[in-house]
C-alpha cells in the first residue's frame, strides 16, 4: 500500500514554486501549444508548477494591476512594449538587464532587447515580434487600373495608389496608422526624430514634421481615407478590408488569419507585399515581451521560465503555429522563414522575415508617458479636425512635452 502511494506521487512534496503565467489572447487557437510548453517545463522542473491564465488584450493591464494590488499577481506576464514601459514607470517590473545573465541576453536581437529599455534598464524579455506587411485587394487594384503585380513599394507610392483607387473606384485605398499616438511612428518612418539626442526636449515641430502632418491632414480633408481612421485604428482597418471596403491594409501578418476566417472571398483576392517604407527606410517592429512583476515571490524561477518560453526552440515552434517572428537570432536564422509558399500567409512570412533587419520597435520611451501621449494625440486630432493648423498643433504638443520632460 505504502509503495503504491509513494509511486502514485500522492505523498510527493508540494512544488517549491508555483508560477502563474499570463498571456494575451492565446486561447483557444494556441491552447495546445502553450499547454505542451508548460507540460515539458514541469517535467524538467518537478519542483515548479505553472498555472496558465489567458487574458484579453483590452483588459490585461487593469487585471494585472488589480491582481498585484491584491497580492495575487502573476509571476510572468505577457505585455506589449507600451504596456511594459507603463508598468515599468510605476516600478512594477523586474530589471531584466540585471536578472538575465549576459550569455542568455546575447541570444536575442540587441535592437529588440532594447525595446523596453528606459533609464538604463530593460523591463521585458522579448518574445515574438510582428512586423507589418502590406496586404492588398487585387480585384480593387484591377478596377482602379493599377497592376496587382506591382504593389506600392514606398510611402509615396502607397499614398498615390490610395488616391487613384479612391478616385477611380470610390472605395477607400487605405487607412493610415494615425490613431492614438501612432503618428509618432509615421514621423520616425519618415526619418524624423521625436526627441533631441539628450532626450530632454521634444523636436517634432520642425518644418519637416509639419509638412508630413499637413500632407495627411490634406488627404483627410480630401476624403482619401475614412473619417473614423483616427478612432478605429487597425481594428477598423481590418474590418473594412475584410468587408472589401478597403484596398490596402498595412498590418501584422497574423491579421490575415482574421480576413481568411471572416471573408474567404476577399482573402482569395488578397496579395501580400513588403510594407511600403517611408523616407527613413525604417520599419516599426511591434514586440511582445514577458515581464516579471517586482512583487513576484519566485523571481528567479519566473525569469528562468520566461527564458524557457522565449528560447530558440520554443519560439521557432510558436512561429510554426502563426505568422509571428522570433526575437532570438538563432531561431530567426531558421530556413523556415525564407521558404516562400503560395498562400498569403506564407508570402507574408517570407516578406516579413526579410524586413526584420531594417525594423525596430518605434515606441517612444518617455517619462510621464500618459500625459505626453495624451497631449500628442490631442494635438494630432486638433490638426485633423481643423481646430489648429498643423504648425500650431505640433508647437503646442512640443510645449506640453518640454514642460514635462
Amino acid at each position: 500500500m505504502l509503495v503504491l502511494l509513494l509511486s502514485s506521487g500522492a505523498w510527493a512534496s508540494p512544488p517549491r514554486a508555483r508560477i502563474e503565467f499570463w498571456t494575451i489572447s492565446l486561447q483557444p487557437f494556441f491552447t495546445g501549444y502553450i499547454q505542451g510548453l508548460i507540460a515539458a517545463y514541469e517535467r524538467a522542473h518537478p519542483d515548479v508548477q505553472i498555472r496558465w491564465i489567458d487574458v484579453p488584450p483590452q483588459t490585461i493591464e487593469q487585471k494585472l494591476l488589480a491582481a498585484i494590488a491584491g497580492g495575487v499577481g502573476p509571476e510572468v506576464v505577457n505585455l506589449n512594449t507600451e504596456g511594459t514601459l507603463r508598468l515599468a514607470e510605476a516600478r512594477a517590473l523586474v530589471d531584466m538587464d540585471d536578472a538575465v545573465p549576459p550569455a542568455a541576453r546575447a541570444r536575442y536581437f540587441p535592437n529588440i532587447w532594447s525595446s523596453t529599455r528606459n533609464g538604463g534598464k530593460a523591463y521585458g524579455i522579448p518574445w515574438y515580434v510582428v512586423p507589418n506587411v502590406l496586404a492588398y485587394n487585387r480585384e480593387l487594384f484591377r478596377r482602379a487600373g493599377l497592376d496587382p503585380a506591382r504593389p506600392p513599394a514606398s510611402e509615396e507610392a502607397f499614398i498615390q495608389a490610395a488616391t487613384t483607387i479612391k478616385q477611380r473606384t470610390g472605395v477607400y485605398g487605405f487607412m493610415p496608422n494615425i490613431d492614438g499616438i501612432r503618428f509618432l511612428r509615421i514621423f520616425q518612418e519618415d526619418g524624423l526624430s521625436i526627441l533631441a539626442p539628450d532626450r530632454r526636449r521634444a523636436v517634432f515641430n520642425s518644418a519637416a514634421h509639419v509638412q508630413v502632418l499637413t500632407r495627411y491632414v490634406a488627404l483627410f480633408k480630401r476624403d482619401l481615407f475614412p473619417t473614423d481612421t483616427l478612432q478605429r485604428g487597425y481594428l477598423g482597418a481590418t474590418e473594412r478590408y475584410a468587408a472589401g471596403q478597403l484596398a490596402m491594409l498595412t498590418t501584422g501578418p497574423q491579421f490575415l488569419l482574421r480576413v481568411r476566417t471572416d471573408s474567404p472571398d476577399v482573402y482569395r483576392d488578397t496579395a501580400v507585399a513588403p510594407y511600403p517604407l517611408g523616407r527613413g527606410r525604417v520599419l516599426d517592429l511591434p514586440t511582445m515581451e514577458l515581464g516579471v512583476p517586482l512583487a513576484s515571490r519566485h523571481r528567479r524561477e519566473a525569469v528562468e521560465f520566461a527564458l524557457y518560453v522565449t528560447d530558440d526552440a520554443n519560439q521557432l515552434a510558436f512561429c510554426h503555429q502563426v505568422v509571428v517572428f522570433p526575437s532570438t537570432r538563432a531561431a530567426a536564422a531558421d530556413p523556415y522563414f525564407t521558404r516562400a509558399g503560395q498562400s498569403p500567409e506564407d508570402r507574408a512570412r517570407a516578406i516579413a522575415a526579410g524586413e526584420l533587419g531594417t525594423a525596430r520597435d518605434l515606441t517612444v520611451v518617455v517619462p510621464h508617458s500618459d500625459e505626453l501621449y495624451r497631449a500628442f494625440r490631442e494635438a494630432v486630432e486638433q490638426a485633423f479636425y481643423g481646430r489648429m493648423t498643423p504648425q500650431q498643433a505640433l508647437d503646442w504638443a512640443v510645449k506640453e512635452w518640454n514642460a514635462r520632460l
Partner: protein
Amino acid sequence: MTAYLFLLPALVLLATFTFYPVIFGTALSLFEYNVISPPRFVGVANFRQIAADRYFWIALGNSVKYLAVVPVLQGCAILLALWVHRSARGIGWLRAAYYLPVVTSIVVVGIVWRWLYDDAGLINFVLLRLGLARGPIHWLASPGVALYAVMFVTLWKGLGYYMVIYLVGLEAIPPGYAEAAAIDGAGALQRLWRVTLPLLRPSILLAATLSAISALRVFEEVYVMTSGGPVYATYTMFYYMFDQAFGALHMGYAAALGVVLAVVTIGLSIASFRLLREGGLSYY
C-alpha cells in the same frame, strides 16, 4: 432583534459593496496611489489639481451636456407608456419589444450602432437614398455630432426601462379621475396635462432622477463607440475617471474625480426632488 437579523444579509452586502468602497474611495482621494507603490498622503492636492485640469472641465462639460438626454428620454418614455397602456391585441408583445434593448448587452448595442452610424451604414444609406443628405454624415467621427449620436443610443436603450416605470405609475392611477374630468368637459390633452401628469409625478421624479444619475455616469456607450473622441467630444466624467485610474494609474486622482462626480450627482438629485416633489395620488 429578529428584524435586525432579517436585515443582516442585505446590510452585509451593502457594507461590503457600497459603504466600504464609498469610504475607501473618499479616503483614497486624499492620496497619491498607483497600485504598485504604497499610497502617499497628499491632502487636498488632488482636488486642487482638478480645478486646474482642462480635461476635467472638458469631461464635466460633456457630462452636463449629456443630461440633455433626460427630458427627451422621459418625454418619449411617457408618450410610449401612454400608448402601450391600453388593452389591445398583441400589446404585450409590443411592450416586450420596447423592453428588449434594455436587456441587450451594451457592448452588443454599441457595436450594432457603430455599424448603423458608419459612413456606409444603414442610416446614411437611407438618408442618401431619400435625398435628405448630400453626403454621408460622420455620426461618430464628427466632433460636433458624435456626443448627440451617442446620446441617442442611450435614449434608445433606456426607453423601455423608463416606459415600464411609467406604466406602473399609470396602472396605479384610478380611471375615475380621468373619467370625471371628461364628464366636466376636459379634452384628451387637458386630461393628460391636468390629471395624468400631475398624478404621475412620483414616477417622473423617480425616472428623471435615475436617468440623470445614469447620464452623468455614462461610460459603456462611449467606451464601445467612440473611446472619448473625436477630439474629446465624447469624453465624459466616467470615461476620464477610467482613463486616469487604469490608463495613467492615478488611482488617487481618479478617486478625487469620483468624489467630485458624487457631489454633482447628489446635488442634481436634491434639485430633482425639490422640483418634482409635489404631485401623486397622496398629494391631492
